[in-house]
Structures are given as C-alpha cells and as structure tokens.
C-alpha cells in the first residue's frame, strides 16, 4: 500500500506522475499494492497496519501525516514509513523529531529527479523550485539540480563545455562540480557535448507572453501535466473526456506541435485529405490487395484518423475560446508592450479588462499588468488600485510577492537617464522597491528590457511582413513579433563559444555568467548535442524555439527543466491570497 502526496497546491502534477510511473512498472502489483491514495489533510481510513507515504519533502505535508493519523491517541498501533522524493530534508525530519515520533515513523528517500517527457525534454517535476528559489530565496533545490546534472553527466558525459547565466545556475554548476569531484570518473564516449544553464529570472518576459505555437496553446488552455492532457467533451465531441499523452509518439501532434497556430488548420485539413485518399484506395481492390490493405495499412490509418480528429477538435475548441477572450486584442497589446509603442492604448485595454473582471482570474490580467518593459509609476499605481478593486484587496500580498521575485517593476521616469542615474532615480521614485539585494538588482534589470531588446534585436521591425509559413527566425513563435530572450542567449553563446563580446548584454542581465571548458576531448556528433537546463521552469514555446534553432544551426537540443511553466502557472505560484 502506498500513499502519495501533493505538496501544497492541488494542481501540482505529482500524483499523475506517480500513477504514470506505477502503471509502467510491474512492481506495485507484485507487492500487492493495489491502489494509490492521495495524502490529504484527513485520517487515512484503512485496515492495514502498515502505511507508506510517498511525499515531497515539505514540512506542511509531514504535519498532515502526523496530525491526521494520531493513531497512538486512538490506541491503535500502525507502522508508518515516509519516503521523501526527490530528497529528504533535515527540516522535515526535525519536524518528526520535535513531535516525538522520529523512529516510530521511519523515513527514506527516493532520489527520483528526471522524468523524460519526450525524446528531447526531461522534466524534474519540481514546480516549487521557482517559488522556493526566486521568491523565498531558499536554496534547497540547488543540490538537487546539481545531482540531476551529475546523473546526466555520469550517463552521457563527460561534457566538453558548460555555459550559464544567473545566480542559481552558477550555484547548480558548483554543486555539480563538487559532486563530480566526490565521485569517480569513468572514461566513456561522450554523448552530450555542451551544457547551457539558465535561470528563469534572467528572462521573465518570454514565459509571460501568451503562447501561439500549438503545443504552447494546448498547455495554456488545457494544461498539460506530466506530458498528459485531458481533453474535455467539447474537444472529443462526445460526453466523455479523453486523457492522452502528448509527445513525439503521436505522429500528428509531432508535426504540428512547433507550428504557429495559424498554420495548424491548413496542415490538419491537408492531412485529412490525404487520409481520405488513403481510405479511398480500397475501392477497386481485389481480395488479395484488400487483405494486404487491412493487415498493413488499416490499423495505422485508423490510428491516424483518431489522432487527427482529436487535434482538429482541440484546435476548434482553442479557436472558440480565443475568440471569446478578445485574443486578437490581447496579442496586440502584448506586442505593443514588447515594442514599447502605444503604451497608452495598452494600458487602457488593461483597465477595461480589469474592470470587467474578465479572464480566468488573475493570471491573464496580471500577465499584462507585469508589462515586462516596466511601467511608469503613475500608471502602475493606478492599475494596481483598479486591480485590487476588481479582484480583491487580498492581492496586496500578490503584488508584494511579484515585487520580490523581480517580476514587477515601475519604470523610472525618463529613459535617457544614465545607468547610475536611473538606479538612484529608481530608489527615489520607487518606494516599493524591496530588498536591496537580489530583488533589487533584478528590479534594475527588469526595466532594462528595452535596452536588451535593442542590443539583441529581439523585436523585429514591425513594418516588414512576416511569413509565418516560412519562419526565418525564432520570432515566428510569437507571430514574428518577438524573439525569445532566453533562446537568443543560447544561440549567441553557442555561436561565440562563450560570452565574449556580450559584455553589455550580461551587464544588463545582471551578470553571473560563466563559460567553462570541462573536457576538451569530445569529438564527433556529441559536440552538436547541447543540453539546455532551465532552472525555474521553461515554456513549450521555448522548447519549440530551440527545436527550430537546432534545425537551423545543426544542433540537437535536449531540454532539462525543473518544470514546464507558462504565464498562469508562473503567476499562480506567486499569488499571495492563499493562506
């Protein structure tokens, strides 16, 4: 018998992850574990004398377990075992000790940290990484990140070169290096050549944009969890919902996942015509041919049919939802915010939405509110006031969190200020500027977006037509309006083999960049295989962009991320109105 727990928020994908793993392995039935239960804040109703809890190492969850299962008081004797995954923390055990049940409750650790979501995507399934690290400043997961890298290193290394940017990346790199030194090296043929580590707070702009490539859209709308998505009745056009895995095994999905949504319909209808053609072939077949057709092709066709109708359903549902939400205008607003034009109009759009209490809660609105480019203090204050009026004063705490994570910044008045002046200017203007340490410096970085965008040419000139069918750069991911900052950095650093000539950029990004040669002997194909590790989560748009970059420049990218994220998840993890 086993129990699994969610940490603190009911939407975390832990349980489905566990179920997926459990279904895959035959071990659980062997041990007569017939069912998995969720750990909740209530006593376990069971006749069994031995309970096993599989949980995240969170103090709150540990508390649930002992509070809810006060068997001793009830005069009942049961054995408990808590297995922490991916790590056991001192603090959790200290909690057990404090309660006087250490020893009675035994603990263990399951160092599961890499879940392959696809051929080129590995997730650590640690959504809390973002909040813990970037909001609370707690480095509890740094070593876990280092271990994940170490595991990959010992399986596919040695790496030839490591690049990175961001404080957490640097620490994770250090932790990896220490673990390599602790262990012993074995000579092996390298399969991964280079590694790029990047902190989420280097680029908040990208994950906050509404996604328009297919996979990203599906995630924004239906929420992909652990590579699985549940399509409701409106997609399946039946009364049942359908749970499917979305990865490269799905042939139809594999072809459209990285496409801009405007191309998806055309592609799907072409595919449907082909399928019809293939079905039609059976007309005029003789018995023998028919037999061959049924045994060889029909099954494939049927499967393709099923997949096709599912994705068509999903696309239709996306269209419906998006037209309802004024999606066009929303995109327009985002794009003009990125370009830094028509700020007035954008703000009035926001105001309208806020006062209409539109959107599935805060995510959407806040998304824009955070205007990555920085707002003028006056606008910011007025938006904040309106936001609180519409969504409740509780969100004061949300704003405080946003500020701490460095997502929210007012722009100092007048952009022409020199760097130094602008810093001081911000200090005077922005009384809300919080901690002077990290939050402060990332705050300074935030309003650097405009300068960064000029330096790296992130926002293409808007007067040129952009043909989304024939993408010429990564900007197609956002309808040709914006090149993803994170992926642009990857591209530049790989091209230059380091950070040389990018001093200005790294200064704007607040430094913490590094490039280290670890093992120069790597040869052959491995040199083109690049592991990109996102600390704090990455979006499907970023994965799509890297796939595109890989095709263009002849790299093979493997993405490792602490979790898949998107604008809603990012904002939700910072909401302060929950106890």
């Amino acid at each position: 018998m086993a129990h699994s727990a969610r940490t603190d928020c009911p939407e975390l994908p832990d349980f489905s992850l566990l179920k997926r793993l459990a279904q895959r392995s035959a071990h659980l039935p062997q041990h007569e574990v017939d069912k998995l239960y969720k750990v909740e804040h209530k006593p376990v109703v069971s006749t069994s004398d031995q309970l096993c809890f599989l949980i995240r190492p969170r103090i709150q969850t540990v508390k649930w377990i002992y509070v809810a299962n006060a068997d001793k008081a009830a005069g009942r004797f049961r054995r408990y075992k808590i297995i922490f995954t991916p790590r056991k923390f001192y603090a959790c055990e200290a909690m057990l000790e404090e309660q006087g049940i250490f020893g009675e409750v035994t603990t263990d650790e399951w160092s599961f940290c890499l879940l392959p979501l696809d051929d080129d995507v590995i997730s650590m399934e640690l959504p809390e990484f973002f909040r813990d690290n970037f909001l609370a400043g707690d480095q509890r997961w740094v070593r876990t990140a280092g271990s994940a890298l170490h595991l990959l290193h010992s399986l596919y290394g040695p790496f030839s070169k490591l690049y990175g940017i961001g404080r957490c990346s640097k620490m994770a790199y250090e932790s990896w290096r220490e673990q390599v030194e602790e262990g012993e090296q074995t000579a092996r043929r390298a399969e991964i050549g280079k590694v790029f580590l990047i902190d989420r707070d280097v680029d908040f702009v990208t994950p906050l944009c509404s996604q328009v490539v297919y996979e990203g859209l599906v995630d924004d709308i239906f929420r992909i969890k652990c590579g699985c998505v549940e399509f409701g009745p409106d997609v399946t056009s039946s009364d049942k919902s359908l749970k499917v895995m979305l990865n490269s095994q799905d042939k139809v999905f594999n072809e459209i996942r990285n496409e801009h949504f405007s191309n998806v319909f055309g592609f799907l209808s072409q595919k449907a015509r082909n399928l019809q053609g293939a079905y039609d072939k059976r007309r005029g077949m003789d018995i023998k041919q028919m037999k061959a057709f049924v045994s060889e092709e029909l099954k494939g066709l049927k499967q393709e049919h099923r997949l096709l109708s599912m994705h068509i359903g999903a696309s239709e549902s996306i269209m419906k939802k998006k037209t309802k939400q004024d999606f066009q205008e929303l995109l327009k607003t985002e794009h003009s915010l990125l370009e830094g034009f028509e700020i007035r109009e954008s703000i009035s759009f926001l105001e309208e939405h806020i006062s209409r209490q539109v959107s599935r809660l805060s995510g959407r609105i806040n998304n824009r509110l955070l205007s990555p480019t920085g707002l003028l203090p006056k606008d910011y204050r007025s938006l904040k006031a309106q936001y609180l009026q519409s969504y409740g004063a509780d969100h004061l705490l949300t704003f405080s969190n946003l500020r701490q994570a460095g997502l929210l910044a007012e722009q100092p008045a007048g952009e022409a200020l020199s760097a130094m002046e602008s810093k001081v200017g911000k200090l005077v203007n922005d009384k809300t500027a919080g901690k002077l340490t990290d939050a402060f410096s990332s705050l300074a970085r935030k309003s650097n977006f405009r300068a960064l965008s000029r330096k790296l040419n992130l926002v293409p000139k808007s007067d040129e037509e952009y043909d989304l069918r024939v993408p010429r750069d990564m900007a197609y991911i956002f309808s040709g309006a914006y090149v993803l900052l994170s992926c642009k950095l990857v591209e530049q650093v790989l091209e230059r083999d380091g950070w040389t000539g990018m001093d200005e950029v790294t200064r704007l990004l607040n430094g913490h960049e590094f490039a280290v040669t670890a093992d120069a002997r790597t040869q052959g194909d491995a040199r083109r295989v690049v592991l990109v590790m996102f600390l704090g989560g990455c979006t499907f748009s970023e994965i799509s962009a890297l796939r595109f970059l890989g095709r263009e420049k002849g790299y093979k990218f493997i993405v490792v991320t602490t979790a898949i994220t998107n604008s809603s998840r990012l904002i939700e993890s910072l909401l302060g109105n929950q106890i």
Partner: protein
Amino acid sequence: MMKSKADEEDYWNSSKFKAFTFDDEDDEFSRLKESKRAVNSIRYLVEEDDDEEEVEKVSWSGEPVGSISWSVSETAASNQKADREPAFPKVSADSGPMSRSHSGYSLSSLFKGKTKGGNFQSLADSPSDPSVRLYAPELRKPKSEYKDYVSDWSPEETVQRMQQGKVVSLEKFRSLQDKLLLLDYAVNAHDGNVITAVLIYLKRTLSKEVLFRELESRQTALRHLIHYLTETRDQRLLLELLRSLLPPGHTWCCVSFYLMGFILLFLLRALGRMEDVALLQYKEHLSIADENRRRDFLKNCLSLPFSPEDSAHVQDHYTLLERQVIIETTDRQAERGGKVEVFQKFPRKASILNMPMITTLYYCCFYHYTESEGTFSCPLNIRQTFKISEKQYFVTALAARAKLKAWSDVDALFTSRNWLGFTRKKSPLSFQRVVDILQKNSAPTQVLQNYVALVDDAELRISLAQKHKCHDIVINTYRDLKDRQQLLGYQVKLKRGSAEERKIDELLNNPQIRWKN
C-alpha cells in the same frame, strides 16, 4: 479506502524485508538470529559495503580504518588544517554516487548526539526499517571510538558530509565562532537543506537576540530562516525577527531623513521590512472566517506601517467589508421577508461578504440601483467612497442593468445633456465595447442597434451591424456611402420578402440618390 485483505500481512512478510518481521518470536536467541539475517540482507542492499566485512580497510596512511591510531592521526590532521581538501579517505561513504542514495542521516544523532546503542535499539524496535543500513557499518565500531569519529569534523567537513547526507553531530560546535563558521560554510556550499539544518541547530542553541543580530549581515541565511519559519507557521518568531531588523527607535514617519547614499539604501531595505511586517500581519485576516471578527481585525490593521499606497488599499478593504456586513444583513432579511421583488425574481446566488470591490459594486447596481445616495448600498455612494473611475463604474453598471434587461436604465447611463438642453449619447467606453457587453447579456436586436448606430467608424459599424443582424443600420450606412454594389450584395443575404429587402428595393429605385458605383 484500502481493501482489507487477509493476505495483506502475508504480502509484507513475503517482501524482502521479511527478515525484519518477528512479531511473534520474542526469545533472545531468535532475535539475535534475525538481527544477523538483517545485517546480511543489508549487505546485499549496499553492495559497496560488502568488502568491508571481508577485507580490512586501509586508510591512506596504511593503518586499518577504524583502529584507534588511525582515527587519532586523522583527527590531528583535520585539526591542523581545516580549509584544505578533505584529507579523509572515503570511509563510510565508499565510492561513487550510488552509496549516497543508500546512506542517510539521522537527525536525532545530529542534534541529540544519540549514541550508537540507541541506534541499535532502533534497529530492534522498528525491524522493518531499511534505514538501518545506514547504521550498519558503524555497528562494528566500539562506542567510544564512534564518538571521536563523528564529532571531530571541521566545520567545512561537517558541511560536506551533511551535503552528502551522512551522519554528523553538530553538538560540538559550541562557541559562537564555531557556529557561525559552520553557517558560513553551509552558505558557501549553496545547499539550502544544509543551511536550514544548521539554522535549526543555531535557533535551538542561541538566544534569539544573538541569532538575529548575526543573521543581519548574512542575507542568504536570513532568507532561509524566514522561509523555514514561514513553513513551520512560526508567525510569532517571524514577526519578532522582522521587528528586530528594524533600526532601533525607528518610527514610521522619519523616512525622509535618510535620503542619501548608503543610508538611503539602508532605509529602503528597512522600509521593505516594515512593509513585510505589516503585510504579514495583514495576511492573518485570511485565516479568520467570521466576518465580524475579520472586520475588527482589519480595523486594527489600519495602524500598521504599510506604505502610504498600500495603507489606502487596506483602508478600502476595511471599509468595504464593513459595508458588506451591513448590506448582507439587510439583504438577507429582505430576501427572507419575500417582499422585495428583485430578490424574488433573481435570488442571490452567494453572499456578498468578502467579495472584491467591483463585484460589490455590481451587486449593488443589480439590487440597489435606485436607492438614494445616503445609503451604504447605493452604487453612487460606493463609487464616491472608493473613488472608482468613471470607466470602471460605467462598465459595471452597464453589465448589471443589462443583465436585468433594464434597458431604460442602460439608456440613461449614456444620456448627457448639454447646456442647451439637448440630449446626446456619450460613453467613456467605445460603443463597440458597449455593444459587446450588451450582446453578452443577450440584449435584443432593437436595443443593440441603438448602440451600433453610434459607432463612428463606418467600416466598423457595418461589420458590427452585420454580426448582430441590425439590417437597418447596414442598409443606411451603405446608403450614406452611396455604395450600390454593396447594397445589392447585401440584399442577397436577406430573407425574401422581408421588410429590409423591400427597403433596399426602394432605395435602389430612388432616383434622387447619386450612387458612386
């Protein structure tokens, strides 16, 4: 629900930990035998430990590991130089990352300095505990030696061992200097788990004043402590901590004195903290369910040192809840009384308590639209009290009245009189949006077309009119544009013999219009 199975017991017993289950056998001999089997099965699990049984381990200096001379010499070495690379051969960890996952640490031994005897006891107490593996290698060493062996690590080595999840004892770090050294090494190792562990130890062994004082210059550690206290819900200590970080004798209004250089930075940090204190206390309101108590709590919050801006928001929050309590009481009675028509026709779906401001405004526009300005629930009164912008008020009122299908009220919203007494329609919102809102509240075409007609841009007007089937407007606009072709095209789309079709016919036959095409 877990299924009760007779063979449940069998399952556990038949697992590989069967050796540990000896519920019925009590005599010493069988216990010993079981223990031996247990140890053997441990060896099986931790393969690296295998050779330790058979082959004597030799440290780098050539002495057998575990011998007294070995531990003395190693201890001496470690005392000599704490900051060099760990001089220890990998004794208990053996090699490779594999052993890491099998080893663990015991927090009791960590903090309580639990003896090995106790550990052995726990082996016997909880036989099904695989974590006994961890103690197993140490079982073989005499007690006294074990003690030396654990407690003589330098701060740096201790941190390293903790990172690897090995057993350590922190008890020996008694001087403040040692404790801080330990903390600094933990911070340098960037391992939040270890930092928190050290902080838990420091919190236990140092007075709050000393701990807080030292943490002030250690930001990373401070953040970890704050997070730990937040997670354990130790609000009291957390507030104490935050207060202690404020400058002594600091009052909230002397902010403007520090406006230069370093002092300015310090001020901002401190100001940030003050707000943190205030917000933290404010956050408490979320855990108060009773609305009256919550309101009183918020009232007390008003005096907290928020930033001027936030303080206004909290004030609003309090005023809002205060009103909601009043409105809720009156309306609940009105609803029960059954005399007020609007509550009968549109029963309230939920209580208005704790709803956001705009929801409250909507509610009042819905149920209390016509009230005089003196009452708390009058929309205009609310608008004034909370300084709601014209646009926001407009949108909300529009939606509420449209929902009730009170079209005359909707109309009145737009009407403004100029000084000559003429009325004209004005809106802070584009009429396109107005149409959108009305349409979402299922306004009939007659109502819609009044507003579609007010859209300035002809193109936009036509597309809106087509979308909402306001034929008259389409036709009139085309007429004004003198666009015969479009009119002809539109006629095709209309129902045969309808009034609109006839109207187009008339227009087309009207010789007075000079068509442009």
